[in-house]
């Protein structure tokens, strides 16, 4: 299997997103590096709007992810409710 991954800037907003990712992807690994947070998971990784909103306590649009995003790996699928990365092999 291949690892799907996402890296976010290490800031306040990202901390909530990371919390949400950890909840929705229990097998994901979170790696803290200078100024960035990298989260990886075998095969796929999903970010759900509802979980992030729950953590932040306010409305949050999936596309707001762009503001804190550094890089990613995997095939992207995005709609109003979730953002996912998957490898198909």
């Amino acid at each position: 299997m291949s690892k799907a991954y996402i890296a976010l800037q290490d800031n306040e907003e990202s901390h909530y997103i990371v919390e949400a990712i950890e909840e929705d992807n229990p097998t994901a690994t979170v790696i803290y590096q200078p100024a960035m947070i990298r989260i990886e998971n075998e095969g796929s990784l999903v970010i759900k709007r509802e979980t992030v909103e729950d953590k932040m306590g306010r409305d949050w649009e999936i596309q707001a992810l762009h503001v804190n995003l550094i890089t990613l790996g995997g095939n992207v699928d995005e709609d109003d409710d979730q953002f996912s990365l998957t490898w198909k092999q």
Partner: protein
Amino acid sequence: MSNRKINMKEKYSLLTRDLEWEYSYRDYKEIFPQEEFEGIKITDWSKWEDPFRLTMDAYWKYQAEKEKKLYAILDAFAQNNGQQNVTDARYVNAIKLFLTGISPGEHQAAMGFGHVGRQLGGVGARVACQMQAIDELRHVQTQIHAMSHYNKFFDGFQDFPHMHDRVWYLSVPKSFFDDARTAGPFEYMVAIGFSFEYVLTNLLFVPFMSGAAYNGDMATVTFGFSAQSDEARHMTLGLEIIKFLLEQHPDNVPIVQRWINKWFWRGTRMLALVAMMMDYMLPNKVMSWQEAWEVYFEEAGGSLFKDLARYGIEMPAYAKTAIAEKEHISHQAWSIFYNYGHAAAFHTWMPTEEEMDWLSEKYPNTFDKYYRPRFEKWREMEAAGERFYNPTLPMLCQTCQIPMGFTDMEDPTSTSYRQSEYDGERYNFCSDGCKDIFDYEPEKYVQSWLPVHQIYQGNCGGPDIEDVLGDYYKINLGVDNMDFHGSPDEQRWNAWHNLPSAEEKLKRAS
């Protein structure tokens, strides 16, 4: 009228596909004259899927937010004399190389996507290229803006666009983008959109920028990550173009594979600059070039190529060579620049004892065996007042334009050297990868503007090399170039931090 809020997919469809119209009074081929000559077959542009589904209104909204965050930090950095808080003035030389070598490439990419976006028949691809062209323009602007602050306090930043078009090592990234921009639109997309953005830019913008943060350079890490957040979208576009081309027609597969082979190798060669920035120019180390390569090429690239295997796409040719080179490339590139430190617009130096120990630990198979003895010799020569500068001009590879300083991976002590003949002339290459690229399109690469040839032909001023460096390159001799030790940069830094000068240190020691 209903007030129902449309969802992302509908909005994307309305704001991209719906902007297209039928061409009723002009022939399609007249409107998109470059779509066929590369041999790529497109049967249905409507199959194009942009996974990010970003529309222009959302694009402006989020880009504006990114810019506000970025400029708040750049302002804070300038107001608080951030330049004094980087780990060490040597570090700033990596930023000089970034401004002169990398930022102009962002501008080239903006021009390239502007052009290609006009040439593709599918509206989804055109809109994506338009956004990417604007992104790239944003990158070059924010990078110049961020680094202009350093220009007030350090040497070597002042003439970056002039230098980019002339200086020998800057011809490496310049010729890379020139090559891509003079290719057809689909090759450009595979070159820059896929091979460079997806497979290689992480190596520049992720571990190096994390390293900038670790060295106290708040300005650089911020523009770097702000740029890379766009790159995540570009990577996705790059992957999309590949999948789209491969799904459109089986005849596209070998063409795309050849482009991947070519551009992976060209990109890998260019990244030798980034390898030495990581291993030699960051005083506080985050990870070695080898470690970064393993995470971002071997692991991430490996997943990508496994995913593409279902289309019949294989790992790039020469990936094996590039993987073997990960233990050598940064040391060899730094040696080249140390040799020609008098001809560069930034400073070079020999690593300290501690830094050499770090390199030994990170490169257990190669550093002590091949590089440490040479570096120790150079350090001795410097201590004896005979800092080594290579007085000759190097032979350059006809394709990547890097001096022939890389070695054969089967025998890492002998120079890797290949030749081809074309039209009665002999051409020289640093590798099989670069030779193959030439052999496939010799009529393109015989026209390469090779800085050393141009100097010998008298096209860069002269007659002496100082005239070329000073008048033609606009390097401030004795200021921008030479070793870091003894440079005005070092003197200013020591004065800011009340550190003893090199002379004072010597006096104290004796």
